[in-house]
């Protein structure tokens, strides 16, 4: 019984491991450095057809075409920014999972800071109000007793 459990566990592990080696994109670049940059770029470019997947993970044909474009540009000696600019010129900022700071995306970047400031202001106010309450509380009690 125990042995069967062990064998099953091993088989399931093997299955999971083999699934992860079989990726959507089998592309191999000639050097480890290019491979690293290729993976980085294909993971930060959005598949416009599926919109919540990176082109590295998407099986649709447009994603494959865009991966081919990235590969060819890297092999031609283009920089990562060249590739990003190329994509943004055609598809707009939306293709970048990490949007740039621009007039149209400034709220996206500023919102967390603004929210944090609002939160901090609220926290300070509440703390001050409570401190004021405590101060009132600390006034001598017997005064009240005597006056009542």
């Amino acid at each position, binding site marked *: 019984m125990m042995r069967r459990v062990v064998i099953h566990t091993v088989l399931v592990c093997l299955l999971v491991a083999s699934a992860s080696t079989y990726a959507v994109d089998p592309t191999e670049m000639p050097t480890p450095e290019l491979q690293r940059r290729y993976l980085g770029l294909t993971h930060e470019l959005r598949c*416009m*057809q599926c919109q919540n997947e990176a082109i590295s993970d998407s099986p649709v*044909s*447009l994603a494959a*075409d865009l991966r081919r474009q990235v590969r060819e540009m890297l092999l031609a000696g283009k920089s990562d920014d060249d590739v990003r600019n190329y994509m943004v*010129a*055609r598809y707009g900022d939306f293709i970048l999972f990490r949007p740039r700071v621009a007039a149209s995306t400034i709220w996206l970047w500023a919102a967390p800071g603004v929210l944090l400031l609002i939160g901090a202001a609220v926290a300070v106010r509440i703390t001050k109000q409570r401190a004021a309450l405590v101060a009132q509380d600390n006034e001598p009690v017997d005064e009240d007793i005597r006056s009542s």
Partner: protein
Amino acid sequence: MNRFILPLGIFALLAIVLAIGIKRSPEKGIIPSPLIGKAAPQFTLPVLADSSRTLSSADLKGRWYVFNVWGTWCYECRAEHEALLEIQKLAQVPIIGLDWKDEEPDAVRWLAELGNPYEVVAADREGRTAIDWGVYGAPETFLVDPQGVVVYKYVGAMTLEAWQTRFVPRLPPRRAAKS
């Protein structure tokens, strides 16, 4: 009274932000093209059904044209085909087709069966021209002016209504009046 001002202000701000979101929601999912107002991408591609000829973007300069991206594998393209035929009959602007990542025999059969609204169709087998145009899902339809500038982009199946309300108003009055 004073303590209501801040929450009320935050509520009003939130309401405004959400109202803008709701107002714009019909356009949600449609990603604005960065090509609007810019020169149409250049290309030279074989002509569908006549690969001895090529169509180049330079051939199209000097007149208005509609650039319609389609493929026989695309369901929505079948849905819009009737509308394209009607738009072609209006004869306001010629329709240039881009057959995107398609098989030549399929595309030729499609046009023979359903009718051909296109003045000419360029065949983009590898999908490179479609990338240059920022196409992310067929059908997509562009309007290009005589200077070769992209004036408008419509995503999804064309309809006669979309043509009348979104394309015709962007045409010069004389051309628009032809309908």
